[in-house]
């Protein structure tokens, strides 16, 4: 948007293009010698390569195939995640939420975007959007249905609002048709949306991209 256009929008401040402002903030700090070499680049790499839902999928697949680990994940999620070395920024106190035949868990951060970054990946745009933040707390069944996840009427939806330091992951139910699969095979059907709680794993839906 040009400055001239922004002046016509009542109540909105004039502002330089966002990329100019973002780089100016970095360059102003850099000019004072306040940014260690590689600081921003290292975070970018961590966000893009280390914090991925493949980790959460690995935890779910292990829980599906190992009852002892499942018990640990549900009773002390932090300890279970620490076994894999997957604790990290915005993922230091973890609680896993168990779906059952009568309860479906769904995660949101209505006040901003809080997410268990290291095991779910950074939150996607839709999760941070005003529609999801406003609606899923109040009408989760309708929101999920619009996202193509229809739940039986006798399944209660429990919404977890991430409002303090706990970071959640959903432990979905293991779907039919996966009997005898290895943990590696199972991990491939646990998507980012399954970990957030808005999708159900299916034997027919395989993850192809690390961030999908």
């Amino acid at each position, binding site marked *: 948007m040009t400055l001239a256009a922004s002046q016509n929008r009542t109540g*909105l*401040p*004039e*502002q*330089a293009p*966002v*990329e*100019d*402002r*973002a780089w*100016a*903030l*970095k360059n*102003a*700090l850099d000019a*004072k010698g306040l940014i260690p070499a590689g*600081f*921003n680049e290292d*975070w970018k790499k961590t966000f*893009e390569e280390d914090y991925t839902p493949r980790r959460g999928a690995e935890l779910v697949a292990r829980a599906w195939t190992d009852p002892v680990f499942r018990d640990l994940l549900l009773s002390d999620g932090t300890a279970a995640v620490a076994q894999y070395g997957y604790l990290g*920024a915005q993922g230091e*106190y973890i609680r896993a939420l168990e779906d059952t035949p009568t309860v479906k868990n769904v995660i949101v951060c*209505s*006040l*901003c975007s809080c997410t268990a970054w290291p095991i779910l*990946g950074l939150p*996607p*745009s839709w999760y*941070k*959007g*005003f*529609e999801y*933040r*406003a*609606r*899923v707390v*109040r*009408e989760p*069944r*309708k*929101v*999920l249905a*619009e*996202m193509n*996840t229809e739940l039986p009427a006798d399944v*209660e*939806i*429990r*919404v*977890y*609002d991430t*409002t*303090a*330091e*706990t970071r959640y992951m959903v432990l979905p139910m293991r779907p039919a048709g996966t009997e005898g699969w290895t943990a590696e095979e199972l991990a491939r059907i646990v*998507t980012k*949306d399954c970990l957030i709680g808005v*999708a*159900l794993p299916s034997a027919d839906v395989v993850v192809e991209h690390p961030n*999908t």
Partner: protein
Amino acid sequence: MDGVHDLAGKQGFGRVPHTANGPIGDTFKYDWEHLGYSLLFLGVTNGYFTLDEVRHAVERIEPRHYLTTPYYERYVIGAATLMVEKGVLTHDELEAMTGGPFPLALPATSAGRPARENRETFEVGDKVRVTDDHFAGHVRYPAFCRGKVGTVQHRTTQTWPFPDSAGHGRADGGSEPTYHVEFDAAELFGDDTDAGSVVVDLFEGYLERVA
């Protein structure tokens, strides 16, 4: 702070722009998008401010500005606001480096507050009420649960500084556990909801025992 950021339960929004397992693209869509998060971590690492202050700074973006600004841009504005408020940079330096206007979040209207002194510890299964509390500073309870009664489902085994203090850069936030409090959806929204229950992670200082 009863700001526009407190969105839960607000009506009138359209469809969530996503279908289950649909494509979400790359982690960052533009090459500047990692800067909001990485520079706020620079501020936290260098001791200029806390992550709670970052949340509060973003909440202080003027409401129309907040509602029309994409997510990562709000964190660039929040980080820049705190760098200026803490004296790390000046607004003039920022705008000179930008070559144009760089409007920041509005100043805080509250100095924050210390952790509550008369807290009590709750157990799983206890009935608790969220205090009927109104406060212009940073808080971490959404308004939909204010004054509402729920059941404790989990008490954390770790403790953290009270956000109403830490969000203002104060040192009197103490250290509190939080509680996962489950509310029947009808307690929150009457019959105008299709949820079963909502669980909110609430600091001890926001809760009181239901007799």
